[in-house]
């Protein structure tokens, strides 16, 4: 009994099979690593690694295919849902997920995500919202908060000039093709577990042939925000998630 428990603990701490041995190259305090691990754990638990395809975006997670131990490609900026649509329509037996940032999904790729959601594509979308364009150096994203300073809104985001923060799940929840839709954070252990559960349901929405599953994860970008990792994580909890309310918007998986 004791040995079994010990073994269980060891298994829990093991690197998920769905991650490669490559160490994450993300900045200190970036939440991509946590989300990567959660996605990998879900793929392991659902025993779908051998038939899962990743569509990585353009952005910081452009290298995601190096970290996931699954077949993968990189879509043109914003087009991941269209690439995933092609894959899934041609090979419905595969499990296809996209991993996209806020610039990718909520700016240049709005058309693709909206129509993939509306068609109810059997794909899973992991949407990382960190309020800035990370890879290009912290420019304003459509999800940047009002008043927030970025390299392209140096005096703060002005709604008269730049419009308002885009709320993707609130927008997509009306589409009948969507089977699971949630917004979470990974800013504390309870939230991490919630995020993992949501990711699992977003995959089940696909696997059970229900429709599109999407999880928006509010993530820290300490580099882009000019904060230290602890401060950034606190900011997610205290400021960022005030604008973007966490919760489950659609759940047909149950």
């Amino acid at each position, binding site marked *: 009994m004791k040995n079994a428990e010990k073994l269980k603990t060891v298994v829990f701490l093991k690197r998920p099979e769905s991650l490669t041995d490559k160490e994450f190259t993300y900045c200190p305090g970036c939440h991509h690593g946590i989300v990567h691990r959660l996605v990998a754990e879900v793929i392991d638990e659902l025993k779908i690694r051998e038939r899962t395809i990743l569509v990585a975006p353009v952005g910081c997670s452009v290298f995601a295919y190096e970290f996931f131990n699954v*077949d993968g490609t990189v879509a043109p900026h914003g087009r991941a849902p269209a690439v995933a649509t092609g894959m899934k*329509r041609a090979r419905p037996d595969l499990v296809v997920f996209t991993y996209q940032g806020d610039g990718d999904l909520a700016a240049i790729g709005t058309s693709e995500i909206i129509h993939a959601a509306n068609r109810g594509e059997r794909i899973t979308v992991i949407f990382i919202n960190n309020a800035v364009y990370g890879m290009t150096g912290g420019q304003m994203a459509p999800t940047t908060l009002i008043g927030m300073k970025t390299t392209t809104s140096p005096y703060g985001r002005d709604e008269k000039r730049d419009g308002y923060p885009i709320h993707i799940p609130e927008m997509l929840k009306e589409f009948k093709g969507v089977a699971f839709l949630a917004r979470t954070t990974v800013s504390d252990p309870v939230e991490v577990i919630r995020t993992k559960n949501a990711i699992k349901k977003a995959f089940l929405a696909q696997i059970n042939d229900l429709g599109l599953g999407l999880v928006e994860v509010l993530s820290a970008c300490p580099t882009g925000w000019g904060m230290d990792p602890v401060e950034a994580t606190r900011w997610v909890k205290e400021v960022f998630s005030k604008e973007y309310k966490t919760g489950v918007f659609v759940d047909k998986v149950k």
Partner: protein
Amino acid sequence: MSEKLMVKGTEAIGESAIRAGCRHYFGYPITPQSELTEYMARRLPKIGGVFLQAESEVAVVNMLYGVSCVGKRVMTSTSSPGFSLMQEGISYMACAELPAVFVNVMRGGPGLGDIQPAQGDYFQATKGGGHGDYRMIVLAPSTLQEAVDLTYISFDIAEKYRNPVLILADGMIGQMMEPVEFPEFVDVEKLKEPDWILNGADGRDPRRITSFDIDPHNLEKIILHLMEKYRKAEENEKRWEDFMVDDAEYLFVAYGTMARILKTVVKLARKEGIKVGLIRPITLWPFPYERIEEMAERVGFILAVEMSTGQMVEDVRLAVKGKTEVLFYGRPGGVIPSPFEVLEVLKKYVKKVRV
């Protein structure tokens, strides 16, 4: 070969693609090729294929990218403005080495232009319409039977070179009807799955298909590898037609619909004692430079005729290397030069030379 059927060009291309084993089509309506999209919408669901009308041509090309990643034959068709929107994805596909077949039924441009037949997309098709060092293999049919035949082999060519292939037609090829014979159906079940596709890392290391390498030395290697393939295509894929060139004293060079019209001009001119011939490039890339250079040494001048203000003529000049005079006549914007119109132009230049 089956019996002859009277079909529209767009439908001829669609049916030929299906017979070549294409079961995946993604499209967006645009004149003058919507009948091809409609044909696939009718036909594919009945034979277990996938048809999807996408939200834009931008989405279309990326759906092709996805299908190609998982190793299935896939095509789309569009017309000039729509083809412009696909350039981003084609550049990605060329770098990621993803085969697919594109059809551009050209109409008048630039801009929204008009919907009449034109040849103004030659530069875009042959010189790389998207960013970066890449090529598309470009096939230009001039009859419906040739549209059928080229479409049929285009999938093999795309897979052989792991590169997008373009059928470059125009509104006339798309809209006209002509009897054609269709080739046999390829048995889709027997098509071999390539060993590079994404189909799940089951019992093997994961595969990655990307158009990306952050290290310039690595990216250089990728591009040089592409160039190696393109050199092979240049060696193996050049196609053209000689028409009455053996005794020709003057030479036309034209492709597609324009070349077909020029065949009438060649016949009319010969009735008036002007020995003119025609070289019709069938592959616009790779372009048959050598054949045109050979002819340049034998003729008084070369007259390139296009339904544009002069694009292919630049390749003709590259081929000729100054060995003879290269003249041009063209009508842009969807105006089709008529046989007698071109005949008059030819006669004018012949008169100049003879004087």
